[in-house]
């Protein structure tokens, strides 16, 4: 008989061993499709590592892809802490991006010192506003936020398309539905020449620390945790549950909105309706992998980004269908999930 026993505490070596074990397991599993596609497995892994971290360029690409994931990951982590299941990061990201181009593509002209903060605030505000609806529908009518935020993703994306084909269309875009470019003043600075690294990464890192402090050290964080863990007891003890929920919704939406700002004002320069390949949804995975820890989000985001970038590059170098990249990400994700499990429980065989 197999039994599980919760561990009282998790020793550090075990955490490391589990993570390493999960990595190895993922590699073994992924070897199956790689071999099936007729590629040398070890070569493939060498190429994968090289593609993710093997050069300054590779590492910069990994970090660039991690940047929005850190922010959407934080958005999910904050909300999930309060048991507010915000699945709408994708929509909030687009809302943030839309607001950023609305403000930052020439409608207002001011020096960078004014424009950059303005663009950031606009994006955060838009993301936050988008969360008000689901939060109020939840608190007022009990409408499940998983559903409302999920469905709003589709609505927002359509709204963005509508804007891009209508009032916000770039007249110089030759009819292509894209926004006017973000002006140089409103763009986030690049961090390194010949790479796509931009200041969004710094913003993400700073906010991760800020959110960590918020959750651990402040009254708001205390109340968020209390509401998330036991809303009834929190309400009984006088914690303003509704206000806390709204606050969390706003913070979460704002963080996801900032991810959109980074992508549009830091990376692409203008908004199209295919700005994000699902960063909002990936943020949920990042947050849960990190155990909802804000600092853990950074590591999880870099992990997910690195695996994707590396596997994608490997598939290209070996000529295997690049659907392999997603397959590797999915397998790694599930393996890491199981690895985390092994740290929490001891498996015992038999009785006694």
């Amino acid at each position, binding site marked *: *008989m197999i*039994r599980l026993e919760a561990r*009282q505490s998790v020793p550090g070596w075990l955490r490391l061993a589990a993570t390493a074990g999960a990595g190895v397991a993922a590699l073994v599993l992924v070897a199956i499709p790689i071999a099936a596609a007729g590629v040398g497995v070890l070569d493939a892994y060498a190429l994968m590592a090289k593609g993710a971290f093997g050069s300054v360029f590779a590492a910069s690409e990994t970090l660039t892809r991690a940047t929005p994931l850190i922010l959407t990951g934080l958005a999910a982590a904050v909300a999930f802490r309060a048991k507010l299941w915000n699945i709408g990061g994708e929509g909030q990201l687009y809302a943030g991006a839309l607001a950023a181009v609305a403000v930052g593509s020439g409608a207002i002209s001011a020096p960078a010192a004014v424009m950059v903060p303005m663009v950031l605030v606009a994006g955060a505000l838009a993301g936050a506003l988008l969360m008000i609806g689901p939060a109020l529908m939840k608190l007022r009518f009990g409408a499940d936020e998983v559903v409302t935020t999920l469905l709003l993703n589709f609505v927002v994306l359509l709204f963005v398309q509508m804007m891009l084909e209508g009032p916000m269309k770039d007249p110089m875009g030759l009819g292509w539905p894209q926004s006017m470019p973000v002006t140089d003043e409103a763009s986030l600075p690049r961090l390194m020449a010949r790479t796509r690294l931009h200041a969004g990464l710094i913003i993400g890192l700073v906010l991760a620390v800020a959110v960590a402090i918020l959750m651990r*050290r*402040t*009254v*708001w964080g*205390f*109340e968020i*945790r*209390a509401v998330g*863990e*036991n809303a*009834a*007891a*929190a*309400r*009984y*003890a*006088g*914690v*303003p549950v509704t206000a806390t929920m709204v606050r969390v919704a706003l913070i979460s939406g704002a963080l996801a909105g900032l991810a959109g700002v980074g992508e549009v004002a830091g990376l692409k320069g203008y908004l199209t309706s295919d700005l994000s390949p699902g960063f909002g949804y990936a943020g949920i995975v990042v947050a849960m992998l990190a155990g909802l820890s804000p600092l853990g989000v950074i590591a999880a985001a870099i992990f997910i980004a690195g695996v994707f970038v590396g596997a994608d590059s490997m598939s290209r170098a070996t000529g295997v269908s690049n659907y392999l990249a997603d397959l590797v990400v999915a397998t790694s994700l599930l393996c890491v999930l199981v690895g985390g499990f092994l740290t929490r429980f001891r498996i015992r065989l038999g*009785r*006694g």
Partner: protein
Amino acid sequence: MTDRPPVLVLDGITKRFGPLVANDCIELTLAPGEIVALLGENGAGKTTLMNILFGHYTADAGRVRVADGAGGLSDLEPGSPGAALAAGIGMVHQHFTLAENLTGLENIVLGTEPVLRVWGGRAEARAKAARLMRESGLEVDLDARIDQLTVGERQRVEILKALYRDVRVLVLDEPTAVLTPQEAEGLFAVLRLLAAKGLAVVFISHKLGEVLAVSHRIAVLRAGRKVGELETAKADRRAIADLMVGREVAASRRSPLEPGAPVLELDGVDVAGKDARRSLHGASLLVRAREIVGIAGVSGNGQAALAALIAGLAAPDGGRMRLNGRPVARHDSRAFVEAGVARVPEDRHHDGVVGAMSVAENVAIEDIRAKGFQHWGFIDFAAIRSRAEAAIRDYDVRCPGPDAPARLLSGGNIQKLILARVLERDPRLILANQPTRGLDVGAQAEVHRRLLAARERGAGVVLISEDLDELFALSDRIVVIHAGRLAEAGPPEALDRGTVGLMMAGHGREDAA
């Protein structure tokens, strides 16, 4: 009776949870027709032992043996409730194991029918359940969903569920904690009847009176060990308490005090709840400083509405409410806390603590926004910690430390934690809703002492309880609640239990007396 061959033998049962030894080599033998009471303080290991017997837990050492048809004993498969049920063991769980989205009947038949059956069988089940209800006096609406039932009704379903199985051994883990005295009496009658027919019963309770009334034999656990076993006929309260606690438990005495200014006034208050249980009709109540007003009543008669009102969770729909002589401006928890109302919730696990947060955080939760505990929105952890350490020390909260998650605490210790949280603020009004439910004698005495001490320091107390002993011992005045209406019964000295019992059943003060 004990000379009959045993139906069940627990043999050297040992169970550890990490470093804690919850059961230490426990032996227990049960003969058919015997009612054995299992006693012990909160956390002594009673539930753990029964959970092993029933297969919820797997013992680290030892075995459970049950009588087989051939007159011998055979080992019960460990860790399998299915096997226990098949061997004729039934269990009434301390914490309900009911699916709230199902009806009572559905909960009763769950698992008794072949899982893959496609048709029929429900009519016989209903008839059998109805018969059981008649015989036991435990009446519930079998077709009402569990979430529509009061705790007392749920407990009845939980018991019916076990009886329905036609068991040889019945384990009852604190079955009376939420039953009225009359209901408990009904249950005992059934137990005696079934025992006479050969059922073996393990009965767990913290109410010594019940134990003495119903059991044949008493086994006492302390800190995971069996410290004694005696014939009930030869036992007395004091000896049992000594065995359980290892010391004598002194009952608190209420000293006469002159009441002060009104702290809570309800004047013709209406609360329109979802159903009769959650409603109040023209309720008037006066609570003054230095007095304890006991609210007696059968559960589900509006206590929840009254408690919500005094806790600041609900606003009256009609009538007037005054706190400390002033009309209430804001009906919300925080405003009430700030107005000096201490609130002890009925369901301490659900409303009392945030289990995942630390003991220290749970002690500080009502004060977290107060000066001294935070500066500019940043928490002063040193202040919180020292407050928690004081609370742990002064209220004897047994826990690994202020940073341990509150969910690890036993019910009694959670209750002490809540008392430490609310009483340290020198409240003017205290709402104590079922404050000793499920607590052992020692913990009960501690809660009583705290409430009396607060009264002496000048607080007014509203004590809602279904335990008449407790009400008679602590209250300066008793008010009876029935069908959402409050009726003054008077000081306990001028009352007898029969009168209060009749008033609880809906009779007026005059015809009751």
